[in-house]
Protein backbone atom coordinates (compact mmCIF):
# COMPACT_ATOMS: atom_id res chain seq x y z
CA UNK A 1 0.00 0.00 0.00
CA UNK A 2 1.28 3.44 -0.88
CA UNK A 3 1.76 6.02 1.84
CA UNK A 4 1.44 9.79 1.67
CA UNK A 5 4.63 11.46 2.93
CA UNK A 6 4.47 13.98 5.79
CA UNK A 7 7.18 16.66 5.83
CA UNK A 8 8.12 18.82 8.81
CA UNK A 9 8.99 22.40 7.89
CA UNK A 10 9.68 24.56 10.89
CA UNK A 11 6.60 24.54 13.10
CA UNK A 12 4.41 23.01 10.40
CA UNK A 13 3.68 19.58 8.99
CA UNK A 14 3.19 19.70 5.24
CA UNK A 15 1.34 17.01 3.34
CA UNK A 16 1.04 17.13 -0.41
CA UNK A 17 -1.36 14.48 -1.68
CA UNK A 18 -0.10 13.47 -5.12
CA UNK A 19 -1.93 10.18 -5.64
CA UNK A 20 -5.47 8.94 -6.06
CA UNK A 21 -5.73 7.50 -2.55
CA UNK A 22 -7.35 4.18 -1.72
CA UNK A 23 -9.54 4.56 1.37
CA UNK A 24 -6.96 2.71 3.47
CA UNK A 25 -4.24 5.14 2.38
CA UNK A 26 -6.39 8.06 3.53
CA UNK A 27 -6.98 6.42 6.90
CA UNK A 28 -3.26 5.73 7.25
CA UNK A 29 -2.51 9.39 6.55
CA UNK A 30 -4.94 10.38 9.29
CA UNK A 31 -3.08 8.14 11.77
CA UNK A 32 0.36 9.22 10.63
CA UNK A 33 -0.54 12.86 11.06
CA UNK A 34 -1.90 12.42 14.57
CA UNK A 35 1.30 10.62 15.56
CA UNK A 36 3.57 13.21 13.99
CA UNK A 37 1.73 16.12 15.62
CA UNK A 38 2.29 14.56 19.02
CA UNK A 39 5.88 13.53 18.25
CA UNK A 40 6.92 16.93 16.88
CA UNK A 41 4.70 19.32 18.85
CA UNK A 42 3.99 21.43 15.75
CA UNK A 43 1.04 23.82 15.80
CA UNK A 44 0.12 23.76 12.16
CA UNK A 45 -0.74 21.22 9.47
CA UNK A 46 -1.04 22.11 5.82
CA UNK A 47 -2.62 19.67 3.41
CA UNK A 48 -2.08 20.51 -0.22
CA UNK A 49 -4.77 18.95 -2.42
CA UNK A 50 -3.98 20.86 -5.61
CA UNK A 51 -3.12 17.58 -7.34
CA UNK A 52 -6.47 15.97 -6.51
CA UNK A 53 -9.00 16.04 -9.31
CA UNK A 54 -11.79 14.83 -7.06
CA UNK A 55 -12.59 14.82 -3.35
CA UNK A 56 -15.39 12.39 -2.56
CA UNK A 57 -17.23 12.05 0.73
CA UNK A 58 -14.65 9.63 2.11
CA UNK A 59 -11.70 11.91 1.48
CA UNK A 60 -13.79 14.93 2.55
CA UNK A 61 -14.59 13.23 5.82
CA UNK A 62 -10.96 12.25 6.30
CA UNK A 63 -9.90 15.89 5.86
CA UNK A 64 -12.55 16.99 8.37
CA UNK A 65 -11.41 14.34 10.85
CA UNK A 66 -7.77 15.37 10.45
CA UNK A 67 -8.79 18.97 11.16
CA UNK A 68 -10.70 17.96 14.31
CA UNK A 69 -7.99 15.63 15.57
CA UNK A 70 -5.27 18.20 15.11
CA UNK A 71 -7.40 20.82 16.87
CA UNK A 72 -7.67 18.49 19.85
CA UNK A 73 -3.90 18.12 19.74
CA UNK A 74 -3.49 21.92 19.63
CA UNK A 75 -2.55 22.18 15.99
CA UNK A 76 -4.43 23.98 13.26
CA UNK A 77 -5.12 22.43 9.86
CA UNK A 78 -5.42 24.40 6.64
CA UNK A 79 -6.39 22.65 3.42
CA UNK A 80 -4.88 24.43 0.43
CA UNK A 81 -5.12 24.32 -3.34
CA UNK A 82 -8.62 23.00 -3.83
CA UNK A 83 -9.52 23.18 -7.51
CA UNK A 84 -12.63 25.17 -8.49
CA UNK A 85 -14.36 22.14 -10.03
CA UNK A 86 -13.69 20.16 -6.85
CA UNK A 87 -15.20 22.92 -4.71
CA UNK A 88 -18.37 23.02 -6.84
CA UNK A 89 -18.71 19.24 -6.76
CA UNK A 90 -18.16 18.99 -3.01
CA UNK A 91 -20.87 21.54 -2.34
CA UNK A 92 -23.32 19.83 -4.67
CA UNK A 93 -22.50 16.49 -3.05
CA UNK A 94 -23.64 18.07 0.19
CA UNK A 95 -20.28 18.54 1.89
CA UNK A 96 -19.46 22.14 2.61
CA UNK A 97 -16.73 21.23 5.11
CA UNK A 98 -17.69 23.81 7.72
CA UNK A 99 -14.94 22.82 10.18
CA UNK A 100 -12.12 23.16 7.69
CA UNK A 101 -10.04 26.25 7.04
CA UNK A 102 -8.95 26.67 3.46
CA UNK A 103 -6.48 28.80 1.58
CA UNK A 104 -5.45 29.18 -2.02
CA UNK A 105 -1.93 27.81 -1.76
CA UNK A 106 0.77 26.70 0.64
CA UNK A 107 2.11 30.23 1.18
CA UNK A 108 -1.31 31.57 2.15
CA UNK A 109 -1.88 28.53 4.33
CA UNK A 110 1.34 29.25 6.21
CA UNK A 111 0.31 32.89 6.57
CA UNK A 112 -3.04 31.79 7.96
CA UNK A 113 -1.44 29.59 10.59
CA UNK A 114 0.92 32.44 11.39
CA UNK A 115 -2.08 34.74 12.02
CA UNK A 116 -3.58 32.27 14.42
CA UNK A 117 -0.35 32.07 16.29
CA UNK A 118 -0.48 35.72 17.05
CA UNK A 119 -3.98 34.99 18.40
CA UNK A 120 -2.37 32.32 20.59
CA UNK A 121 -0.02 34.91 21.91
CA UNK A 122 -3.17 36.81 22.81
CA UNK A 123 -4.48 33.85 24.78
CA UNK A 124 -1.21 33.50 26.60
CA UNK A 125 -1.21 37.20 27.16
CA UNK A 126 -4.60 36.97 28.82
CA UNK A 127 -3.29 34.10 30.87
CA UNK A 128 -0.59 36.28 32.21
CA UNK A 129 -2.99 39.08 32.96
CA UNK A 130 -4.98 36.63 35.03
CA UNK A 131 -1.88 35.60 36.84
CA UNK A 132 -0.98 39.19 37.44
CA UNK A 133 -4.44 39.81 38.82
CA UNK A 134 -4.36 36.76 41.06
CA UNK A 135 -0.95 37.49 42.42
CA UNK A 136 -1.67 41.15 43.03
Amino acid at each position, binding site marked *: MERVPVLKIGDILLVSIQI*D*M*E*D*QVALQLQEDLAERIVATGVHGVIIDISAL*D*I*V*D*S*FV*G*RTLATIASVSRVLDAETVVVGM*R*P*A*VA*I*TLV*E*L*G*LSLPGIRTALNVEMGIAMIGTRESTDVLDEGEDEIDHAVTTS
Partner: protein
Amino acid sequence: MNDESQRIPVTTDQDVVRVRQLVRTVAVAVKLSLVDQTKIVTAASELARNTLVYGGGGEVEVVRVHNDRRAGIRIVFADQGPGIVDLDLALTDGYTTGGGLGLGLSGARRLVDEFDIDTGPGKGTTITIVKWCR
Protein backbone atom coordinates in the same frame (compact mmCIF):
# COMPACT_ATOMS: atom_id res chain seq x y z
CA MET B 1 -26.98 3.67 -28.95
CA ASN B 2 -23.98 2.45 -26.96
CA ASP B 3 -20.64 2.06 -28.64
CA GLU B 4 -18.07 0.88 -26.13
CA SER B 5 -18.49 -0.80 -22.78
CA GLN B 6 -15.90 -1.72 -20.18
CA ARG B 7 -16.35 -3.72 -16.99
CA ILE B 8 -14.43 -3.69 -13.73
CA PRO B 9 -15.05 -6.17 -10.90
CA VAL B 10 -15.16 -4.38 -7.55
CA THR B 11 -13.83 -6.41 -4.65
CA THR B 12 -11.12 -4.23 -3.10
CA ASP B 13 -10.35 -0.58 -2.29
CA GLN B 14 -7.93 -0.65 -5.20
CA ASP B 15 -10.81 -1.51 -7.56
CA VAL B 16 -12.64 1.64 -6.48
CA VAL B 17 -9.58 3.62 -7.56
CA ARG B 18 -9.66 1.76 -10.91
CA VAL B 19 -13.31 2.67 -11.37
CA ARG B 20 -12.49 6.36 -10.80
CA GLN B 21 -9.69 6.18 -13.32
CA LEU B 22 -11.76 4.46 -15.99
CA VAL B 23 -14.66 6.86 -15.55
CA ARG B 24 -12.28 9.81 -15.79
CA THR B 25 -10.78 8.47 -19.02
CA VAL B 26 -14.18 7.92 -20.62
CA ALA B 27 -15.50 11.29 -19.36
CA VAL B 28 -12.57 13.02 -21.05
CA ALA B 29 -13.10 10.97 -24.22
CA VAL B 30 -16.76 11.98 -24.54
CA LYS B 31 -15.70 15.59 -23.92
CA LEU B 32 -17.60 16.36 -20.74
CA SER B 33 -16.69 19.78 -19.34
CA LEU B 34 -14.13 19.81 -16.55
CA VAL B 35 -16.78 20.39 -13.90
CA ASP B 36 -18.95 17.59 -15.29
CA GLN B 37 -15.96 15.23 -15.40
CA THR B 38 -15.35 16.02 -11.75
CA LYS B 39 -19.01 15.42 -10.90
CA ILE B 40 -19.31 12.06 -12.65
CA VAL B 41 -16.02 10.73 -11.26
CA THR B 42 -17.08 11.78 -7.76
CA ALA B 43 -20.51 10.17 -8.13
CA ALA B 44 -18.88 6.97 -9.44
CA SER B 45 -16.50 6.90 -6.51
CA GLU B 46 -19.38 7.11 -4.03
CA LEU B 47 -21.41 4.38 -5.72
CA ALA B 48 -18.49 2.03 -6.33
CA ARG B 49 -17.59 2.28 -2.65
CA ASN B 50 -21.18 1.36 -1.74
CA THR B 51 -21.01 -1.63 -4.10
CA LEU B 52 -17.94 -2.77 -2.21
CA VAL B 53 -18.92 -1.87 1.36
CA TYR B 54 -22.67 -2.56 1.42
CA GLY B 55 -23.11 -4.81 -1.61
CA GLY B 56 -20.21 -7.05 -0.59
CA GLY B 57 -18.55 -6.45 -3.95
CA GLY B 58 -19.91 -6.50 -7.46
CA GLU B 59 -19.25 -5.09 -10.88
CA VAL B 60 -19.14 -1.69 -12.55
CA GLU B 61 -19.82 -1.17 -16.25
CA VAL B 62 -18.87 2.06 -17.99
CA VAL B 63 -20.47 2.80 -21.36
CA ARG B 64 -20.14 5.64 -23.87
CA VAL B 65 -23.63 6.54 -25.01
CA HIS B 66 -25.26 9.02 -27.34
CA ASN B 67 -28.80 9.91 -28.22
CA ASP B 68 -29.91 11.96 -31.21
CA ARG B 69 -28.65 15.16 -29.64
CA ARG B 70 -25.75 14.49 -27.31
CA ALA B 71 -22.95 12.21 -26.21
CA GLY B 72 -22.65 11.02 -22.66
CA ILE B 73 -21.48 8.40 -20.24
CA ARG B 74 -23.54 5.73 -18.53
CA ILE B 75 -22.31 3.75 -15.54
CA VAL B 76 -23.98 0.71 -14.01
CA PHE B 77 -23.11 -0.49 -10.49
CA ALA B 78 -24.38 -4.00 -9.78
CA ASP B 79 -24.08 -6.20 -6.72
CA GLN B 80 -25.81 -9.33 -5.34
CA GLY B 81 -25.76 -7.98 -1.79
CA PRO B 82 -28.61 -7.60 0.69
CA GLY B 83 -30.37 -4.85 -1.29
CA ILE B 84 -31.86 -1.70 0.20
CA VAL B 85 -35.03 -2.15 2.24
CA ASP B 86 -36.18 1.45 2.68
CA LEU B 87 -35.06 3.31 -0.41
CA ASP B 88 -36.55 6.70 0.51
CA LEU B 89 -34.62 6.58 3.76
CA ALA B 90 -31.39 5.51 2.04
CA LEU B 91 -31.77 8.45 -0.34
CA THR B 92 -32.06 10.94 2.51
CA ASP B 93 -29.08 13.24 3.13
CA GLY B 94 -27.21 12.06 6.20
CA TYR B 95 -28.77 8.60 6.49
CA THR B 96 -26.22 5.81 6.85
CA THR B 97 -26.22 2.32 8.31
CA GLY B 98 -22.45 2.22 7.97
CA GLY B 99 -20.82 5.14 9.63
CA GLY B 100 -20.32 7.14 6.49
CA LEU B 101 -21.66 10.63 6.02
CA GLY B 102 -24.84 9.37 4.38
CA LEU B 103 -24.19 11.53 1.34
CA GLY B 104 -23.22 8.84 -1.15
CA LEU B 105 -26.58 8.02 -2.71
CA SER B 106 -28.25 11.40 -2.29
CA GLY B 107 -25.14 13.34 -3.29
CA ALA B 108 -24.42 11.14 -6.31
CA ARG B 109 -27.98 11.68 -7.50
CA ARG B 110 -27.49 15.45 -7.39
CA LEU B 111 -24.30 15.18 -9.42
CA VAL B 112 -25.73 13.33 -12.44
CA ASP B 113 -28.44 13.84 -15.08
CA GLU B 114 -30.14 10.47 -14.72
CA PHE B 115 -30.27 8.19 -11.71
CA ASP B 116 -32.10 4.85 -11.63
CA ILE B 117 -32.02 2.34 -8.86
CA ASP B 118 -33.30 -1.22 -8.83
CA THR B 119 -33.08 -2.83 -5.43
CA GLY B 120 -34.98 -4.76 -2.81
CA PRO B 121 -34.35 -7.18 0.04
CA GLY B 122 -32.57 -10.24 -1.31
CA LYS B 123 -32.36 -9.05 -4.92
CA GLY B 124 -29.14 -7.06 -4.75
CA THR B 125 -28.71 -3.50 -5.93
CA THR B 126 -28.24 -2.11 -9.43
CA ILE B 127 -27.77 1.62 -9.90
CA THR B 128 -27.52 3.27 -13.29
CA ILE B 129 -26.34 6.85 -13.73
CA VAL B 130 -25.96 8.97 -16.86
CA LYS B 131 -24.23 12.27 -17.46
CA TRP B 132 -24.78 14.05 -20.78
CA CYS B 133 -22.57 16.61 -22.47
CA ARG B 134 -24.12 20.07 -22.22
